[in-house]
């Protein structure tokens, strides 16, 4: 007898009986005793339920609600493979620049929409926490927060933490004590060693789904691949000894064996999109616009730098950490504009963190800064913008500089759309729309356009240079990304004999940063930095008092950067070789 939809027709109890909601009784009670909301409300109730039904992973539901995410087939395919075939446990190993973050965001969002993920943890390198939060919030409307205190483990169901912080107590216990629906590990090659605290910490997390993001799953030897896959799906590549016997073909562990079989097993856990033959980003042209400061600006720059060097030298043990950070900000601001610096100097002159002599020097510097009405760099920018009719994005780190530039450009008849972090979301949307419309220049602070498509512009001006190269890369990524069809011009404005000149020397001439695909720089700097950030390394050198010592230190840093770049190129080539057939080519 076939199963009939009529009651009482089956003679056996179902193996998995439906658990009815106890709340049903309350609905019955009210249905029998109280007035209804009306026939229309009844009909809408049914429609609301049907609209919100989850039908497995038949398609991606989230596309319409995403903001500033261009729909690429390779990303859609990757997300669906992770959801359907890999059941939420995957290594996303796309080549740099193909959008692993977007793929992870898609998977996260699809799970969240279906109610399958209510608690998620993203583990990133420290420098990428804010970027992840911005991307998850702005593109995917996922309410991620960056971990600030141990209470945040309880407080925020969607949390971003650096792996270094998360594994340390008291955070480690809190993280392990939480049942995570999804854990994402960015730059997962940091989990290559299964004896490391990183690996053991991630392995010990209680999790349902896990995504490991890395463009280079193997860096030194095949063991790293085994460790990464075993973290995700133990047994997928057999036991360690079996893996060694079957899949490692040389004593140094670098040559794979039984490659077809290995790749077949990897296909069950790894998505690796590569740029197709027809997929190439248009070229990027870099232009340097060096500027000689006016005598007043030069004097202010040198005086501020002298102050910073003096204070930095004495800061250890005497000045609080906050003062040290203020000194970094001050040195960065003077590289941007005198207007950005003036305000900070005015605040510092009243700060009890500095002694009476220092405060007197600061007051003098503040007076100098406020007396300067024009900056040479702004004139240079104006000249550059006059030289063509192209739309241009102009980035600065500081709101004061932005306000000054707005005045200067508008006085010159150049139309400007202003975009900064303090604007309300609607005003930000309006700024982007105005730029897409008739405005010539998109004048933006560091928050500029995260997650927004600005590829219709082809010229980007770095009015000042952030010391964190990843921020420069993010700026470039606003226009030089998937979807860009025309040659992109990156224009760097910098003043001679400043820390920014050092920066250009290192990033442009040593590692040709401006030629790298967005995302690659982090992999290079990740190898370089150790415990100090690039900004800290730069500040350490800049604050050396002797010019000769500065030059020598700069050369050492340059050489280290070159080595890191060479190492990165070699690793990239090796991954391509071993993992090639796991890859799918991304369409143009």
């Amino acid at each position, binding site marked *: 007898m076939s199963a009939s*939809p009529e009651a009482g027709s089956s003679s056996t109890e179902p193996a998995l009986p439906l658990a009815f909601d106890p709340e049903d009784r309350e609905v019955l009670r009210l249905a029998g005793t109280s007035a209804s909301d009306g026939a229309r409300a009844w009909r809408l109730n049914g429609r609301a339920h*049907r609209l919100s039904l989850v039908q497995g992973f038949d398609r991606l539901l989230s596309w319409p609600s995403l903001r500033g995410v261009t729909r690429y087939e390779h990303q859609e395919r990757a997300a669906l493979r992770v959801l359907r075939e890999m059941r939420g446990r995957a290594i996303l190993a796309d080549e740099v620049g193909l959008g692993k973050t977007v793929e992870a965001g898609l998977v996260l969002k699809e799970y969240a929409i279906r109610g399958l993920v209510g608690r998620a943890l993203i583990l990133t390198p420290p420098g990428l926490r804010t970027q992840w939060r911005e991307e998850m919030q702005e593109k995917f409307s996922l309410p991620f927060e960056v971990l600030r205190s141990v209470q945040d483990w309880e407080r925020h169901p969607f949390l971003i933490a650096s792996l270094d912080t998360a594994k340390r107590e008291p955070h480690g216990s809190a993280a392990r004590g939480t049942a995570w629906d999804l854990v994402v590990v960015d730059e997962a090659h940091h989990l290559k060693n299964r004896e490391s605290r990183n690996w053991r910490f991630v392995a010990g997390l209680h999790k349902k789904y896990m995504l490991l993001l890395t463009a280079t799953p193997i860096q030194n030897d095949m063991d790293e691949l085994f460790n990464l896959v075993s973290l995700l799906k133990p047994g997928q590549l057999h036991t360690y000894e079996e893996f060694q016997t079957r899949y490692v073909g040389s004593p140094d562990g670098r040559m794979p064996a039984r490659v077809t079989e290995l790749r077949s097993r990897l296909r069950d856990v790894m998505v690796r999109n590569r740029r197709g033959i027809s997929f190439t980003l248009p070229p990027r042209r870099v232009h340097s616009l060096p500027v000689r400061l006016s005598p007043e600006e030069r004097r202010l720059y040198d005086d501020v730098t002298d102050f910073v060097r003096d204070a930095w030298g004495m800061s250890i043990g005497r000045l609080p950490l906050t003062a040290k950070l203020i000194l970094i900000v001050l040195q960065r601001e003077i590289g941007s504009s005198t207007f950005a610096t003036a305000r900070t100097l005015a605040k510092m002159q009243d700060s009890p963190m500095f002694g009476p002599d220092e405060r007197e020097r600061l007051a003098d510097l503040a007076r100098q800064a406020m007396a300067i009405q024009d900056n040479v760099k702004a004139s240079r920018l104006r000249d550059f913008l006059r030289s063509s009719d192209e739309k241009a994005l102009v980035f600065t780190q500081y709101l004061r500089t932005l306000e000054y530039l707005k005045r200067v450009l508008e006085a010159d008849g150049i139309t400007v759309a202003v975009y900064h972090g303090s604007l309300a979301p609607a005003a930000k949307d309006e700024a982007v729309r105005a730029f897409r419309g008739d405005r010539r220049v998109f004048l933006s602070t560091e928050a500029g356009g995260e997650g927004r498509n600005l590829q219709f512009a082809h010229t980007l001006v770095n009015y000042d240079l952030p010391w964190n190269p990843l921020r420069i890369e993010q700026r470039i990524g606003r226009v030089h990304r998937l979807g860009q069809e025309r040659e992109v011009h990156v224009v760097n404005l910098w003043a001679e004999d400043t820390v920014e000149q050092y920066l250009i020397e290192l990033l442009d001439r040593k590692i040709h940063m401006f030629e790298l695909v967005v995302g690659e720089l982090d992999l290079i700097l990740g190898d370089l930095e150790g415990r100090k950030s690039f900004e800290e390394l730069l500040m350490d050198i800049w604050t050396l008092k002797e010019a000769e010592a500065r030059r020598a230190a700069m050369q050492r840093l340059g050489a280290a950067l070159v080595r890191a770049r060479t190492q990165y190129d070699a690793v990239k080539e090796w991954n391509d070789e071993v993992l090639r057939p796991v890859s799918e080519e991304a369409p143009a």
Partner: protein
Amino acid sequence: MSEAEPLRAFVAEALADAGAEVTGHGGVLWVRSPESLRQALEIPETLALVFESERVGEFGAELIAPGSYLLERILQLAMRRGRWDRGKAQPESDRWISEALAGAGFPATEGVSVGETKDGVLFVFTFRVALTSDEKRETFHAIVVPAASEAGWEIPADLAEAPLSPFPPPGLSPGLESAYEVAARTLQEATRDFVETFRGNGLIALEEEVHRIFGYFDGTVREVRAAAPSGAEEVVRAIEAERDRRLTEALERFEPHATASLCSVRTVVAPTTAARVRMEGELAREVDVVVDPFTRSVRGPSCDRCGQPAGPRFVLPSREILCTGCAATGAESAPLRARPRSDTPRPRRRAAPAGARSPPGSTGRFRFASSRRRGP
């Protein structure tokens, strides 16, 4: 029709039903909300909504699309409201009895003697069924149960939503609780194959996972013992603890759960007409049936194959009178004169165990989905 259009229509109607003034211009919906709605949805008094991401930001409009929080809140609001309703079903035409008979394959005019028509009470229960493991599938079902009946059956959602005339509230609805029990049993049966397929797939995945975990950790223990026959016990204990933790994690991940929740109840007063129908041919006989204009089903005789006493009946060309389930399988060997109305969707599925059928229910979603595919 654009993909966003059904969503737009729903949102406009749901907000209007909750007291908002809603007007539409171009692709933008303008909403002015009363205080109660503002609080419920956490929205300002006036609000512009758009349904296509390209229009985000126009007039500061908020995007409504799957995954947007405001849509989620509107859906929740609509689901909290409208949980019960009552009314009277009116025949759409004078020929509703013959149409219902003909629709089920019975003789419609000749040999039919129509008896007395009385008001009967039908309860409609709508349920949401959720199957979860490491994935989730949900279906929506409308089950109808005549008052004081021991049997119910599933009807298409659009039939359940048919307009009713206002009817004086009958006060307490006697028999509602027992009808719910019948509806719950009916739902259990109606979803049996669907649930079993889901469970089966989950168990296959679990078995693979468990097999892999045991293979890896037990193999690792062997390797560790072989490398250091003595003094490896601490390491082995740690490996086994990790294995057990991974097994627990796998069980939590793949263990299937099936839940059902009552979405709404509708009490329908429907004219119910008794008729005697003379069947000709090999299985010639007279059968007493009842029909009503709400479910448009023919009920009364027991199923010739399985003996089920209640529910809609269908006639095969052989003159067999069958229940819905038997009619569906009977149709494989002999085509029905009139096929029973099917609300069975055909979603893509993984390989199902032999004999498993397509999941029933979820009509609305599939109808909704197909209407969106039709395009403008």
